[in-house]
């Protein structure tokens, strides 16, 4: 009987390279009474590659997902910043261009004119659930953890689609982290780009961008970078430094999803499992601050 009930688009990364994001999202939603119904047989939104090379495909792929969401008739919850951006863009294009909508409908078989809202989990937490309710369910404050919030591109741009309170200096994630006791450090790189889909093809570019982010986060006095985008997290973790093997860790700064920290604060089960999946392990940091429950005997 939760009054926050959504259809849910999990996104590909959340069961692959960012499984900890998917698992922590589901656990946190359950703990806060947000009901999720996964879209049956959803497909990939096409991410950057579709809109960069094929305009119609970039609407048709998310168009099929919107058609499925239409059948469920609930607002759609998304956690991946890239999926969020692609679904929102496709929705706006379909609803504003009847010829395009008709073409997509013919392709996917059912009506893609999804008129419900597409919401990002961060938006729902900050604006619907509210900090008072989160605090009520919290088991412990994450006192002592210093973090810089990293929004990246797709959570804030384009501003006409996105929910964040500012396009150059958003504070939604800052406020959420503050509410669970994290010490949010100021820095000017909240919405700088990590290099996105160039990660495999032009690793040199991504390494340069990512290293700048790590150095600035260290300068800001952070123990970790907190993000809501699986692409940002992957690039940050994978591309810290050019070297013989890219996985050598020059910056010891872990990169965490906001849902993982929320999970720690809410004391939900599975936290240790998510944290162990990172390339740069946050486990030593989290243990040092005594956020993890003592190991069961």
């Amino acid at each position: 009987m939760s009054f926050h009930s959504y259809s849910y688009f999990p996104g590909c990364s959340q069961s692959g390279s960012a499984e900890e994001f998917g698992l922590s999202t589901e656990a946190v939603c359950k703990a806060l009474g947000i009901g999720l119904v996964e879209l049956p047989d959803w497909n990939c939104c096409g991410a950057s590659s579709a809109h960069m090379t094929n305009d119609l495909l970039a609407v048709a792929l998310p168009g099929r997902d919107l058609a499925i969401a239409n059948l469920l008739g609930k607002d759609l919850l998304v956690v991946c910043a890239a999926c969020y951006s692609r679904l929102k863009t496709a929705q706006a294009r379909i609803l504003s261009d009847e010829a395009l909508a008709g073409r997509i409908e013919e392709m996917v078989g059912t009506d893609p004119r999804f008129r419900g809202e597409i919401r990002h989990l961060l938006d729902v937490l900050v604006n619907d659930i509210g900090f008072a309710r989160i605090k009520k369910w919290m088991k412990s404050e994450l006192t002592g953890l210093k973090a810089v919030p990293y929004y990246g591109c797709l959570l804030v741009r384009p501003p006409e689609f996105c929910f964040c309170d500012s396009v150059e200096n958003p504070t939604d994630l800052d406020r959420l982290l503050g509410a669970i006791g994290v010490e949010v450090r100021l820095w000017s790189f909240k919405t700088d780009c990590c290099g996105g889909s160039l990660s495999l093809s032009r690793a040199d570019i991504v390494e340069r961008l990512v290293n700048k982010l790590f150095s600035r986060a260290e300068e800001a006095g952070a123990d970790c970078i907190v993000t809501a985008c699986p692409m940002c997290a992957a690039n940050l973790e994978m591309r810290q430094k050019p070297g013989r093997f890219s996985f050598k860790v020059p910056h010891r700064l872990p990169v965490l999803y906001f849902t993982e920290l929320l999970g720690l604060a809410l004391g939900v089960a599975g936290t240790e499992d998510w944290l162990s999946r990172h390339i740069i392990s946050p486990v030593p940091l989290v243990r040092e601050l005594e956020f993890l429950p003592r190991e069961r005997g």
Partner: protein
Amino acid sequence: MITRVNNGLERRLEAETGQKVRSCYQCKKCSAGCPVAFAMDLLPHEVMRMVVYGQEGRLLESSAIWLCASCETCTTRCPNEIDIAGVMDGLRRMAIKEGVEPVEHEVSAFHTSFLEGIKLTGKTNEPVLIGAYKALSRRFFDDLGLGAVMLAKGKIKIVPRVVRDRRALRRIFRETKVGAEK
């Protein structure tokens, strides 16, 4: 190098993307804030002006159109409300349609691999993507160490996730095939 000039380029781009590039007054805000400008052969503000000049050859053969990461910083900041990232998308799609050999071969190979993976399974699966990319780009030995770590951390799943409705997928890819309309 032959610089192909096409006086209709600006209008064609407007038809494709809805963007009026001629309203650019060269304030260079886009280039100043572009995170990948350091690697581009043409800066974003130069691209805008060259569209007006109809420099089709130089634009479609540039690295800039492939290196744009679509972060949309330029689009957000443009005082003349030009969707600059959208213009980059438009130019790139034009280059693909016309079969211009991409200078950034690897970037193009990545996008092809990504979309072929979706065509095959309906979802993005890391081993399919990485395998296809290595085959197309012929960079077999990049990131082997990283791959091993990702495998150990469970970030690369061996069994691919698939969409059951294959017919819908096939139809989407068939009907959106580039060049099919002409």
